[in-house]
């Protein structure tokens, strides 16, 4: 489709528009890219006032952690190859090896294997190959770019950040599964029922959606801390203290997320013609059977989109997890607050930066894979209603 002549923009306006767009892209990406660069440098370079030194890292190079042109070249080739494998071969292999019903599991296993393989090849094999090559290639083998992974090692291995990572995974996996199970049921019923009751449920959910989370947490805290005493008459000696339990936090986050989930799923269910379940009902399905076998198979795009937003809520949450979990069950985001609050040396600060980049990396991948779903999810609520 070509633009009609009258709609075409004069050159000046077009330049201004692209200039503005370029400026915005720089603004959007720069802080994130910059912390990624900082996290690989020694403290002196990372907090240097000269941007060029932050990028090239002379001090890091002087400390013996540098990349030569050869490293960079081979690394780039390797990255390109692995990206190709991930895009082209991986989907085919996964599709071949997994039985039809278990595609999700197959993808999970495939992704984990790929990640492990990549880490081993990139950090294990590559240095072994490069070291002898560097010795013989002369100027190509001399380090030009300072780069160190020591802060990541310090964060993940020495400070046991992997524990926070596992906790984060437990909480997010729990929240996504439960909130989708509970939410699809409710969203379906709300989309199909035109009763006044359904309307009021949605209105109340809208009010709940607007509540500040601290208001709710103020209600949980005293109850959770004393839950052993409160529940004792019912559960006897084994009454648990809910404070610090990941399960309790999952329940809380699911509920906080529920209003948003049912609104979004309802709008996706409304797009599926009601004739579909009527046909199933005529053929003798109960409501639940129609929901399970007829509607759910065509609902996957909506479920994935809603699941993404549940994931983001649980993964990004600071307030609820920092107040309701104790130190040993802490998730990643509140754990990072511990880093920059105790920042005494610049090394601590760079470690905080490395932890921050570690938290951001999965989100980056998520946007890459699910960009379309995120956009459709954002617009689902707005454009129609």
């Amino acid at each position, binding site marked *: 489709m070509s633009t009609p002549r009258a709609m075409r923009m004069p050159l000046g306006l077009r330049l201004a528009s692209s200039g503005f767009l370029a400026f*915005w892209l720089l603004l959007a990406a720069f802080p994130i890219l910059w912390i990624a660069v900082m996290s690989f440098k020694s403290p002196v370079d990372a907090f240097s006032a000269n941007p060029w030194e932050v990028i090239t890292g002379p001090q890091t190079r002087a400390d013996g952690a540098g990349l030569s042109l050869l490293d960079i070249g081979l690394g780039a080739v390797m990255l390109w190859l692995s990206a190709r494998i991930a895009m082209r071969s991986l989907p085919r292999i996964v599709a071949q090896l997994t039985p039809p019903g278990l595609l999700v599991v197959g993808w999970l296993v495939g992704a984990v294997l790929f990640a492990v393989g990549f880490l081993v090849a990139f950090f294990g094999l590559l240095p072994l190959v490069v070291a002898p090559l560097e010795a013989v290639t002369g100027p190509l083998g001399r380090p030009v770019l300072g780069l160190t992974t020591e802060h990541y090692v310090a964060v993940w291995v020495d400070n046991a950040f992997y524990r926070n990572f596992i906790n984060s995974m437990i909480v997010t996996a729990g929240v996504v599964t439960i909130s989708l199970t509970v939410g699809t049921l*409710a969203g379906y019923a709300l989309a199909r029922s035109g009763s006044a009751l359904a309307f009021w449920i949605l209105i109340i959910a*809208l009010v709940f959606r607007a509540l*500040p989370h601290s208001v*709710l947490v*103020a209600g949980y805290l*005293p109850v959770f801390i004393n839950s052993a005493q409160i529940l004792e008459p019912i559960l006897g000696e084994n009454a648990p203290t809910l404070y610090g339990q990941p399960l309790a936090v999952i329940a809380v986050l699911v509920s906080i997320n529920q209003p948003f989930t049912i609104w979004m799923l309802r709008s996706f269910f409304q797009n599926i013609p009601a004739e579909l379940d009527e046909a199933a009902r005529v053929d003798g399905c109960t409501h639940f059977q129609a929901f399970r076998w007829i509607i759910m198979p065509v609902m996957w795009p909506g479920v994935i989109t809603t699941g993404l937003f549940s994931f983001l809520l649980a993964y990004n949450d600071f307030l609820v997890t920092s107040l309701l979990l104790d130190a040993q069950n802490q998730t990643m985001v509140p754990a*990072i607050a511990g880093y920059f609050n105790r920042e005494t040396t610049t090394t601590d600060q760079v470690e905080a930066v490395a932890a921050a980049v570690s938290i951001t990396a999965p989100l980056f991948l998520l946007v890459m894979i699910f960009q379309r779903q*995120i956009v459709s999810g954002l617009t689902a609520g707005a454009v129609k209603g």
Partner: protein
Amino acid sequence: MKFRTFAAFVAPSIVMMLIFIAFPLVTVFLNSFRITQPVVEQVEVETCTAGFLEQTCTTEIKTQPVLDAAGNQVTTTEWVGWLSYERVLGLAAMGEALAEGAWAGILNIDFWKALRFTLTFTLITLPLVIGLGLAIAIAVNNAARSLKGPVIFVSLLPFIITPVIGALSIRWLFYGDGIVTALLEQWLATDISVAANGWAIEILMMFYRVWHVAPFAFVIFYAGLQTVNQDTLESAIIDGANRWERLKYVIVPHLMPLIIFVALIHLMDAYRAFEEVVGFSSQAYRITLQWLTYDLLTPDDAGNRAISRASASAMLTMVGIVILLIPLLRRTWRDHHGKS
């Protein structure tokens, strides 16, 4: 759908919302009127240390918590009426400030300080978010088709990033000798210390919020731009409308419902601002209402949580939310009655 089936489908969701949203609201409401605290008693303790000729003895009165047989602290719960609200609002200090005519003194009380900042923050970021979102949407709409995918990808990053981390990533550019501060210092040839200047932090917090929410506004407006009626645009051109007039009289009215939607969502979310305070460590200079509740809920040095005052401040925060929600609810109500 029969009522019974409907009930069976929504029951799990409703039960969860009742237990974890409605019930806590009731307890918060009740807790804001009562104070639970450990019972303390005063005991006279005589401590003696060995001295020459005779012992040196001192008696002092110590306050210590009463323990029950199992060794737990005994607590009492008292109904105190509006006491917690008075404390949160700082009525006493406010009265003094008013009596002296020192209006600015009111802003030293935490609650009013938080309210002042939250409101300025919400109202200043609102037009910026809508303006920037609209500008990006129009610019992307004008861009070449092959560029759109990558541009949307990069634009989504600030929105998707963990709020605390996003705030931190901007903080590291400015605090201390961050590179942007260093550049500004070189350019203006002065010494700038962002971290010690309340206003600078306030501007940074607003900048972060606009950076974080503009992509959301952009995506919504961009979707709306795809449905602009091309015929109307063409007739506008034939009638001699220039670019600016077309934007003003055709595109913006078309996007109006979406602009209102984004504005309402932004008002609600900015009013709940919290992560900025954590990310920028701004508690010494600027705090928000939600952070005030959070702070009261975190244990102080003695390990006590001010549950009652936290509840009172939570209830006060809710009043604001209810006021913000009224127009949205009225609109939904009208739509519902318009349809049925």
